[in-house]
């Protein structure tokens, strides 16, 4: 059974802050959803291969030649902050 600490751990992995109220509420909701999901535990799945994808696709490589792509300006146009032709982010060093 998933508990509040599990939820907070998973939230950290997902880079998502939860308020205290959210963590409380989500713990109950997630437990109920996972209980439903765990019904797949009752099935006999011995020897059944997994399906990641339903279409059998052969991966093809495209020719390695230059072609048109987004301009730097277009790629940066929607960014919250830019500098020197790149995305600007705060320091990865905490505090």
């Amino acid at each position, binding site marked *: 059974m*998933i508990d509040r600490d*599990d*939820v907070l751990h*998973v*939230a950290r*992995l*997902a*880079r*998502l*802050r*939860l*308020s205290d109220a*959210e963590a409380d509420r*989500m713990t109950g*909701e*997630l437990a*109920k*959803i*996972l209980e*439903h*999901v*765990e*019904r*797949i*535990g009752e*099935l006999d*799945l011995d020897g*059944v*291969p*997994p*399906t*990641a*994808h*339903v*279409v059998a*696709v052969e*991966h*093809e490589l*495209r020719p390695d030649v230059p072609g048109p792509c*987004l301009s730097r300006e*277009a*790629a940066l*146009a*929607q*960014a*919250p*902050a830019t500098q020197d032709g790149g*995305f600007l*982010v*705060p*320091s*990865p*060093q*905490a*505090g």
Partner: protein
Amino acid sequence: MTAILDLTAAQAAAAIERGDLDPGELFGIYRERAAADELGAWTWVADAAPVAFDVGAPLRGVPLAVKDLFCTEGVPSQAGSRILEGYRPPYTATCVERLQTAGATLLGKTNQDEFAMGSSNENSGFGPVLNPWDRSRVPGGSSGGSAAAVAAGSAPWALGTDTGGSIRQPAALCGIVGLKPTYGTVSRFGMIAFACSLDQAGPLTRDVTDAALLYRHMAGADARDATAVGHPDEIGLPSAERLDGVRLGVPVELAGGEGIEPGVLAAFERSLALARELGATVEEVSLPTADRALSAYYVIAPAECSSNLARFDGVRYGLRVEADDLLTMYTETRHDGFGDEVKRRILIGTYALSSGYYDAYYGRAQRVRTLIARELAAVFERVDAIVTPTSPGVAFELGSKSADPLAMYLNDFFTVPMSLAGVPAISIPCGLADGLPVGLQVAGAAFSENRLLDIAYALEQGLGFDGSPARGGATP
């Protein structure tokens, strides 16, 4: 004007071709209705008619509503999420581009559940959508804005996406037609991703002919989406009037009646009777694992979502909550930008993929997916199509299920198995229950769209459903 509003998209295109209808007038009528919409169906409406209409192309300039999550160059594309508020992409989704090349004109973008996660459109960051049949009720979701716009006559037709039922269920609840095509027949390039192995674009339309026409111009392989294989056949316009020799299967595990509202079951049974009158045989078939499809789906879809939505981090586009360090910027941006349902699914998905739980959840769910795909394939060896109600109930009251995520998920009970197997399914309106539309789902083997559309068309002609009450009134 009323006469023009009564035209289906295919009829409007034909009238333009004959010279009986001016595409500018058609666009103007719909633009005005979309701009005056009171249902919350639209997130953006074109300011003015385009300078020119491509009346020589097959879709003759007929206006098109596009679900918010399709990227449209220079036009807000927010996937119903505050984290993408105001985002104007630098490119257009392949399937929208294909439709524009075929002569469709962009009328506007439609509201949806945030990142297509939901069955009521109440999860939109931009407000709920109301059902045009009864404004106290939801239109379904996640393509709720597209369905409501078509039903209310503020768009002739619309694009949606279906991951576990997001085209079919809102089509059913709004009394229109919705087609989820075979996975891989329509490019996903430029669709803001929810669950890549399940997401598929498709049409929401007033009738089956419009669905065939729109789908014909959407399908096609795409070098920018390695999973887009296109369709092996030219999609025809349906013409079958009879169902002689057609074998329909009713899955005993799905259509057993449990959890289905009596009015929905009655409309479903009337549809089966009609199918028999038209010459079809109706038999019971078995999909032993189908009742576990929802459980598998709510592992697979959230797992893929948790990975896809990692890209919303405040760096390249959308919302950023300023912070002194990078990690806090990420966690605060995602806290403020995502709504509750998206957070739930990110957490479930991350949990299911995390060390120690992967095999019990994601690994098992993928094996269940194999069983469901095999069972459906075996049934389609025996029957041409299977039929079920699209949704266990009619449109429900706003707010009535939002406190219970699991109750909301059960809306997808009939639609999820086909999504997991990647097979096509169409929902057509098959009657009213308590004055609200009921949808009939017809599903077939992979790439059987032409046969599916023919079956749906014959049933549609026999059912004679009247969608005009939802279009009533001077403004939608």
